[in-house]
């Protein structure tokens, strides 16, 4: 979230699209009902199903799954052609005036530089024109035909309201009404927030769905303001934290990145990440990359990390490609992996294409599970009849399962969707022989290290040198680890401007990332968390819920990254001179000497607005980008491509181009391509989702939640049920190219048949929460149906769009 949960109450308009906040985040959704009740806000829900968010919406519109870019592209077109945009914001805080290279072009659904053999782009033309001064050329009049504004207008001219109705199946009158409501927030005194989740991300064009939403918000001046923002409602309690700490194939903590194998030279590695400003007097905060990186390496490898060995740069594994989950299962499926550890993760249920996963896991030599609960994955080898019909005797995988304590049995911090790090306390000991994840990881590490010490083995210097200064090496405490990621001075830190002044004593915790250095004098395990446990102690444990201005920021409650800022880009809530665009929802303002207010400025605190520094301080441009340059796999502007399982045979936005029916830059493995469904065999469009009574595959282990939603069902519109003769409450079989499930049919008026490109499309809803272990009625894993093709950028599986066939069971 750029903003935070309570801030939703400041909105005048709430758009829920690509998510279902009422069901998936009910207690956060409360702030939508507050906005409605106390701010006269309106709620718009656009979703394939009339869900429980729609139940309390002012307006609901249906949409075909996988067509959000068309709806939003149409909106962008409408806002631009009717000139309902926040001009001052767009001109000063975005790249609209930037001039783009002449070689850049878009034709027949493809951008310049496409190579159809590699399915990749040469992105060299996707960039700005630089002047002799090294800065981007701009045209503040927006007249230049190659400025981003005109390219954007041209790009979305095809996205007419007729096209939107034709592709999305949304009735035109609803589209018009919704677009006009959204356009009303282009004024300085109105704010719209967008709430989205996996309904936007789980697509082969998921990242571009999100960009489209962000572009709408930028046009309307809704980023950085109270009641605005792009608010990703994240799933798990600490998915934000795990991403922040970089537990993904290519990441290091704090969104630092692992080197690619081509990056053999440390300085070159730093150089591409240490981005210089592209416009005069811009902050371009990633210029500080070396400070954060060196501090991380000192945190990990302590005294072994020295300037002479590039701070142990070669201790980091180097990538030849991303090894995300989908790639890992592909390798397993090919028999190229031997071991797999699952720490509180149930991939057989959560990841796509269960059939492929069973084959993949069966080829492993060993699998280790650490979990508080029994999971389907740890019993993938067990025959559960039709629900998991495997040949147990022929599965040779050794499987271990280790019992782990749960949230209620530990101290520690988790990061919520609003970037708040909140400390929690242990309420009881774990049952039986349970141990904490920390203890298990420490024990495993020690045992592996001891084996190397005893027997030797392949190069193990990084294991030998890993810093491990915990008072009990076999059981580091949460407090010690929190201090480690917050960071400390290793030697005395003196003021660079006044060498007589000692800023930090050796060993003292630092107050924030501004104190980190690239000379090895500081250590910090995650620079964006720096200051969470500062010189004054654990700020994550703070419990001051006061809110002096009433805007809801409670900056004394817990601690938010970065630097306790609650609304990101809050400089953009003020006009270029530093006055709030809307004084009634003031976050910060320039007082002539400094920035301050109800939030911590997400800006240089003493930067005079006259200097023209932009509010998007992480971008080298200093402004927000409509034109993504080379940062996206499939192009600088979001373009609609059909899902891989699509009911259409042609992409209406780039007709007659088989290459651009689906995302031309998505990574597709050969075996997965063979499992794409076609509409003649699988005529119905299905989507997977969560229900409010359950959380993924956990709550089915709890009796209370099993009672409130006991048995697997699928939702089928009344028209389709009539057509197929399916009675409400009867059993149906749902089959995709990957497999089938059986469940109770819930026949509903809430899913309507859509008219898409001249034909009737029936959509089917597949809730995901059942499986073969737990307290609820046993059911099929919904991911039996989904395919393993991922988003072109993030490799998020396309679980939201599946072609299926529904029939009586």
């Amino acid at each position: 979230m750029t903003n935070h949960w309570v801030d939703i109450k400041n909105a005048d308009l709430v758009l829920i699209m690509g998510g279902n906040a009422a069901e998936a985040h009910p207690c956060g959704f409360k702030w939508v009902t507050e906005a409605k009740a106390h701010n006269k806000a309106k709620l718009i829900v656009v979703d394939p199903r009339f869900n429980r968010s729609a139940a309390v919406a002012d307006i609901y519109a249906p949409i075909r799954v996988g067509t959000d870019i068309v709806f939003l592209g149409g909106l962008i077109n409408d806002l631009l052609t009717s000139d309902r945009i926040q001009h001052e914001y767009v001109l000063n805080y975005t790249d609209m005036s930037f001039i783009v290279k002449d070689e850049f072009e878009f034709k027949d659904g493809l951008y310049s530089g496409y190579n159809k053999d590699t399915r990749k782009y040469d992105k060299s033309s996707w960039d700005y024109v630089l002047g002799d001064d090294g800065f981007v050329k701009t045209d503040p009049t927006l007249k230049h035909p190659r400025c981003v504004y005109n390219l954007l207008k041209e790009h979305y001219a095809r996205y007419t309201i007729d096209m939107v109705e034709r592709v999305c199946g949304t009735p035109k009158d609803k589209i018009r009404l919704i677009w006009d409501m959204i356009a009303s927030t282009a004024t300085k005194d109105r704010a719209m927030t967008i709430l989205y989740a996996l309904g936007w991300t789980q697509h082969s064009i998921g990242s571009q769905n999100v960009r489209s939403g962000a572009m709408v918000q930028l046009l309307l001046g809704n980023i950085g303001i109270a009641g605005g923002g792009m608010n990703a409602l994240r799933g798990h309690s600490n998915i934000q934290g795990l991403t922040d700490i970089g537990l993904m194939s290519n990441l290091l903590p704090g969104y630092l990145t692992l080197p690619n194998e081509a990056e053999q030279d440390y300085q070159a590695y730093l150089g591409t990440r240490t981005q210089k400003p592209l416009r005069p007097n811009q902050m371009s905060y990633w210029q500080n990359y070396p400070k954060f990186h060196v501090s991380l390496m000192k945190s990990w490898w302590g005294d072994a990390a020295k300037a002479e060995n590039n701070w142990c740069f070669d201790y980091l594994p180097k990538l030849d490609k991303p090894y995300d989950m989908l790639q890992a299962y592909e390798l397993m499926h090919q028999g190229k992996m031997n071991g797999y550890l699952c720490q509180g993760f149930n991939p057989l249920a959560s990841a796509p294409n269960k059939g492929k996963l069973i084959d993949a896991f069966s080829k492993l030599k060993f699998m280790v599970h650490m979990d508080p609960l029994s999971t389907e994955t740890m019993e993938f080898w067990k025959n559960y009849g039709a629900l998991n019909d495997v040949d147990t005797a022929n599965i040779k995988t050794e499987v271990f399962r280790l019992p782990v304590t749960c949230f209620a049995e530990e101290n520690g911090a988790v990061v919520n969707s609003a970037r708040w790090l909140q400390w929690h306390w242990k309420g009881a000991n774990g049952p039986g022989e349970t141990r904490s994840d920390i203890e298990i990881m420490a024990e495993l590490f020690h045992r592996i290290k001891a084996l190397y010490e005893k027997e030797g083995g392949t190069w193990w210097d990084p294991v030998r040198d890993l810093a491990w200064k915990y008072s009990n090496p076999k059981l580091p405490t949460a407090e010690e680890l929190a201090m480690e990621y917050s960071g400390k001075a290793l030697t005395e830190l003196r003021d660079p401007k006044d060498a007589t002044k000692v800023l930090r004593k050796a060993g003292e915790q630092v107050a924030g990332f501004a104190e980190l250095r690239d000379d090895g004098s500081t250590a910090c395990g995650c620079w964006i968390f720096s200051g969470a446990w500062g010189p004054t102690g654990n700020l994550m444990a703070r419990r001051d819920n006061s809110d002096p201005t009433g805007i809801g920021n409670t900056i004394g409650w817990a601690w938010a990254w970065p630097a306790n800022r609650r609304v990101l880009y809050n400089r953009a809530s003020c006009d270029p001179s530093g006055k709030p665009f809307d004084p009634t929802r003031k976050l910060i303002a320039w007082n002539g000497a400094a920035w301050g207010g109800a939030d911590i400025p997400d800006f240089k605190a003493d930067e005079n607005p006259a200097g023209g520094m932009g509010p998007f301080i992480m971008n080298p441009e200093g402004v927000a980008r409509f034109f993504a340059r080379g940062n996206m796999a499939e192009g600088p502007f979001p373009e609609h491509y059909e899902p891989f399982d699509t009911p259409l045979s042609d992409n209406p936005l780039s007709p007659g181009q088989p290459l651009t029916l689906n995302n031309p830059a998505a990574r597709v493995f050969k075996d997965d391509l063979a499992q794409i469904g076609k509409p003649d065999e699988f005529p119905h469009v299905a989507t997977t989702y969560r229900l409010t009574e359950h959380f993924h595959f956990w709550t089915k282990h709890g009796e209370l939640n099993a009672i409130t939603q006991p048995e697997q069902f699928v939702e089928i519109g009344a028209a389709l049920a009539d057509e197929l003769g399916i009675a409400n409450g009867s059993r149906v079989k749902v089959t995709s190219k990957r497999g089938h499930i059986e469940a109770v049919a819930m026949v509903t008026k809430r899913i309507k048949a859509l008219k898409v490109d001249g034909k009737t499309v029936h959509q089917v809803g597949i809730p995901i929460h059942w499986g073969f272990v737990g307290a609820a009625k046993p059911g099929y894993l919904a991911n039996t149906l989904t395919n393993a093709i991922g988003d072109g950028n993030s490799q998020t599986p396309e679980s939201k769009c599946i072609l299926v066939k529904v029939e009586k069971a």
Partner: protein
Amino acid sequence: MTDLSRRDFLKVTGVTLVGSSLAALGFSPTPALAEVRQFKLARATETRNTCTYCSVACGILLYSLGDGAKNAQPNIFHIEGDPDHPVNRGTLCPKGAGLLDIVHSKTRLLHPEYRAPGSDQWQRLSWDDALDRIAKLMKADRDANFVQKTADGKTVNRWLTTGMLAASASSNETAVLTQKVVRSLGMLAFDNQARV
């Protein structure tokens, strides 16, 4: 009276009237004591925690048996929302309101267990056995498959044949330690629930 419903009929039957008729005739016992159920949290220990499900991160209060005295083993018997928490203000959704049954789920794991190749069942083993065997399997695979250099001489120091998934409900502290251990081993097939 002929249009009375079935339920209405019942109200005027003699059976219905047993108690009050007997009472009216003087057979009544003394009025039975009727009081509300005792408040069950009166001296329970209250511990502040965060709901483990979604990323709203609602504040919760764990109520456990015992007042913290050394001889009392805490046992959580009730969980409700923390009214001081600025986001949830005491509320909890059906998942959060049902947390107690996850803490005490019948399908919680209680002992390390092992499934042998081809076997159709779990067998118990000790923590020491489990950890030693896992460490040996990991080291053997790393030793056999770790890549220090590519064919064309690039230093890559990676181990691709074993992978790991980290838990998005685990704490930052678990994550920091896991990240550090995994990368020191050179592992790249490393992921979490960010996309699912």
